[in-house]
C-alpha cells in the first residue's frame, strides 16, 4: 500500500473553487436542465473532459510524460490541482485501486452547499479522464465506485 499526502495551497484555490461551483450549479439546476442521470451523471461526463484537459496541460508543461504510471499520474494530479489531501493506493483481490480521502473539490464538504442528498463528485471523472488520456486513443474505461459518507471513498481500478 502506498499513501500520499498533499498540503493545501491557497494560491492554487481557483480551480478548486471553479469545480465546486460547477458541482453545486449542477445540483441546483438539475430540474431546469432535465439531467436524465442526475447531477452526478452530468458531473461524471463533464469531469472526464476536465481530466483529459488537465492531462493535456500537464503533458504540454512537461510535468508528466506519456507512459507515466497510473500511480505517478494520480499523485501528480494530487499536487498540481489540489485534488485531495490524502490518497492511498492498494491492491485488493488482485486489482490496484486508489482511495481518496479529504477531497478538496467537494461542493458539499468543501464548498459548504446543501445538496439535499445529491452528489456531484468530480474526482472519479477527473482521474478517469486523465488516466485514459495519457494511455492513448480509445482506452477502456476503468471501473469506478464512489461511496459518499462522512469520509468519502472513491475507488477505481487502475493498472499497477
Amino acid at each position, binding site marked *: 500500500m502506498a499513501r500520499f499526502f498533499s498540503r493545501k495551497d491557497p494560491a492554487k484555490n481557483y480551480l478548486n473553487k471553479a469545480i465546486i461551483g460547477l458541482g453545486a450549479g449542477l445540483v441546483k439546476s438539475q430540474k431546469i436542465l432535465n439531467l436524465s442521470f442526475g447531477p452526478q451523471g452530468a458531473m461524471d461526463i463533464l469531469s472526464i473532459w476536465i481530466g483529459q484537459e488537465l492531462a493535456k496541460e500537464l503533458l504540454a508543461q512537461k510535468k508528466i510524460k506519456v507512459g507515466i504510471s497510473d500511480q505517478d499520474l494520480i499523485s501528480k494530479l494530487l499536487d498540481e490541482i489540489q485534488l485531495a489531501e490524502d490518497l492511498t493506493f492498494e491492491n485488493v483481490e488482485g486489482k490496484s485501486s486508489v482511495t481518496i480521502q479529504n477531497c478538496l473539490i467537494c461542493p458539499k464538504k468543501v464548498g459548504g452547499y446543501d445538496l439535499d442528498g445529491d452528489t456531484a463528485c468530480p474526482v472519479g471523472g477527473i482521474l478517469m479522464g486523465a488516466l485514459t488520456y495519457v494511455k492513448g486513443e480509445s482506452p477502456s474505461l476503468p471501473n469506478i465506485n*464512489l461511496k459518499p459518507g462522512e469520509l468519502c471513498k472513491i475507488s477505481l481500478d487502475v493498472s499497477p
Partner: protein
Amino acid sequence: MSSPTYSGLISSEEALEREKSAFILDKAILRAICEEGPLSLEDIRVQTLPLEAAIGVKIDLPTIQEIINKYIKQGLIWENK
C-alpha cells in the same frame, strides 16, 4: 446454448434513486436493464454507445459484464439463462 439476458428486479426509478452516486455508466446499464429488460450483453453494449460518444472513452464488454455482475450480487437485476 443461447447467451444470457438480464432483467430488472425493481423499477428503473427505484434503481436510479438507490444508485444516485453511482458512476454514469453503472446508472446507464442499470436503467437500460430495469426499463427495457430482458436485454443481452450485446443489447446493453448498443445502449451504451451514446455514452461512449459523450465521454470519448471506450466502453468494452468486460467492463459492462463487471457492472452487471455487481448489480446481480446486489439483487437489483437477475440473469435469465
